[in-house]
């Protein structure tokens, strides 16, 4: 798969538009999953993960020449970063103007009146998995999700990236800016800690 991407990147560099299309199109589903994972339930009614991915794709298309010139990080982590920015921007936009009506819908965030809206937006787009009210979930799944969210940030981050977002060790390392070996160590530790917590319930 990564060979495929490398090959497409080479073609794209030569100005092959169809390669660009395949390059970006091939990552769409993955990005959509990532967005759906992190998107807050309250803005889900107002925009679709596909919309966010769509805007990210257009951003990426515009920024691709710059990326190809310098390649600061692997392709998927780069795309994920652009998508992430779009995700945060969407949270800001929707929550800035609608914080009041949104709060009425969902009392979970009743503390929000103490926070500035931008802080709120940042926190929502943080790597906490959204306590989505829209997706039916079994009791066990709910518990696992709660435990996952209550893990220390570093642990949660790595499990989310590796298992939920399905990034490879290499991509995870690029996103977190650590070595691949550090990724392996961290994920192992995080798994152990999560297991201890799950055993308690």
């Amino acid at each position, binding site marked *: 798969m990564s060979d495929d991407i490398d090959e497409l990147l080479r*073609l794209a560099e030569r100005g*092959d*538009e*169809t390669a*660009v*299309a*395949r390059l*970006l*199109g*091939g990552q*769409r*589903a*993955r990005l*959509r*999953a990532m967005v*759906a*994972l992190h998107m807050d339930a309250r803005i889900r009614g*107002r*925009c*679709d*993960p*596909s*919309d966010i*991915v*769509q*805007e990210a*794709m*257009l951003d990426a*298309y*515009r920024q691709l020449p710059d990326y190809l010139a310098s390649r600061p990080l692997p392709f998927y982590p780069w795309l994920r970063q652009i998508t992430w920015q779009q995700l945060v921007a969407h949270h800001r936009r929707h929550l800035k103007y609608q914080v009041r009506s949104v709060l009425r819908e969902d009392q979970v965030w009743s503390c929000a009146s103490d926070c500035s809206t931008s802080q709120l937006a940042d926190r929502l787009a943080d790597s906490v*998995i959204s306590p*989505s009210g829209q*997706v*039916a*979930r*079994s009791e*066990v*799944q709910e518990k*696992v*999700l709660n435990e*996952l969210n209550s893990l220390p940030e570093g642990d949660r981050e790595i*499990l989310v990236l*590796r*298992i*939920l977002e*399905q*990034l*490879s*060790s290499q991509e995870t390392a690029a996103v977190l800016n650590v070595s691949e*070996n*550090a990724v*392996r*160590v961290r*994920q*192992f*530790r995080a*798994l152990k800690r*999560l*297991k201890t917590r*799950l055993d308690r319930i």
Partner: protein
Amino acid sequence: MEDSVQSDDRDQQLLRIADEMIDQLRVGQLVDSHALLAAYPQYYTQIKEMLATIELIANVSRSVVKVNDSDTHDRPCGVESGALGELGDFLLVREIGRGGMGVVYEAIQRSLSRRVALKILPFAAMLDPRHLIRFRNEAQAAAVLEHPHIVPVYGIGCERGVHYYAMRMIEGSTLGTIIDDLRHNAQQPSNGPSGRHKLLPRNESQKSVFADATANQRAFAPAETSIGAPASETTASAVAMISTDPSDTRSSSFFRAAATIGLHAAQGLQHAHNHGVVHRDIKPNNLMVDSAGSVWIADFGLAQLDADASLTLTGDVVGTIRYMSPEQARVCAGVVDHRSDIYSLGVTLYELLTQQPALRGNTRHELLTELGSSELPNPRLHNPFIPRELATIVLKASRREQLERYQSAAEFANDLQRFLEHKPIEAKPPTALDRLYKWCYRNRSLVFAFGCGLTLALVVLIVSILQLVHQRNLARSAAEREWKQAQAASSEERRASQNCRLALRAVNELLMQLSATKLKNVPGMEEIRASLTNRAIGILGQLDDIGQNPDAQVALELGKAYQLMGDLQVHGGERRTAIGSYTKSIDLCETTDKNG
């Protein structure tokens, strides 16, 4: 801590196992626990536990998102031919242009053997089905439009994963290129045409980018510059004669050509708006001017169906920000509707007239700030030769406020038509008062601060004026009093000297009587005369004392008195004393001389 883990060989192996399990899951397989357990029997429990935990987490993700939904659906099936030789029915000839949304090729549609412009849309491959529906709807909407100033859409499709948009091939160039040429030639006037119009059929003079190609049209529009152009039919089909010679950007034919371009585009827009299609991306590069000088609006591909609001939930901002209306760029509140197109056409014409973009900023941020700050400056500031009416029309179309623009493309077109026919236009330039009011509104805080300052200054001024007036009154009354006193003093003095003179005259009269000859020779009167004279001298002396400075008259009278005294003394034989009297008389007379 990581070091301690790494040093442990057993843990190192477990790390690898965990990594492998996660990776297997990642690529969509079931974790092959049997193989792992067979390979590492010593970690049986650990593997079982880890696997359980990993699967629990993975389960959460499956409930949140179905990762692989519709993944295969629109995955591009790929174009194997690296070169762009052909695409389905189309034979790609050459690249014509490249824009934000894709590359345009000149192509031959083999089944109909016609030339088409084929726009390849790389981003369409990234669309998910929902967006693809929207995109197709937009294309359908554009395909419905049939108008002499709208580029006809031939078809839209997907061939081997590559989405394309086929439209009629327009021979000519974009307005963007024309503006670039005008600007370029203005900078290097001696170079003449830069030869960047590769696609352009040039006329003999090699100066005009567009010439009125057909004799027919020439007959209809005999002279671009003639006053009192013929009826509307003619102007509508008038030929846009744009010369890239910089000196021509001052001529009236240039402005009439620019107005004609605007007129064509506005007519095309009105047609689209009538069908509920808003372009949303009008800019110089989307307006084609063909070799006959007619204008074509291209790229209705990004248009959005007004009615189909559900497909534009998020209202993605597409289009080039430089030509975006404030409401489109979300600088101002307002729904993006057909008036957004009017704005974009307005700033496009502004750029054509001035050869300068209406918004000068280079970054997104700069442009947005500029868009939110003030109205556009009058284009006549850049080029004073622009006719006033044309400048007014362009400014009205590109107002920040939706309600202040032309409310329909037809109104816009009508005003341009009126300009071309030398009739009075409907648009009115904003009065100085309007501008002042708007400026004040935009700079509310500044105006408020200024107003406060002004009020304060006024109060201070009034207070100090009152103070000054008060002090002046005081000074004046004091001066009056002094003047009165002085008056009183001088009248006193006058009266005193008058009295003195009266007294002197009385004494002198007495002396004259004494010296009269009647008494002179009366014996025995000598003594009486002498005593009387002495009394007179005494009085005179007193008078002299009163008037501190010996008044000339007093002194004179006194002198006379001493002389009389001397005479009497001579008579009485007292010569010695007589000499003293005469000396005094002489002295007094001398001082009178000196003073007088």
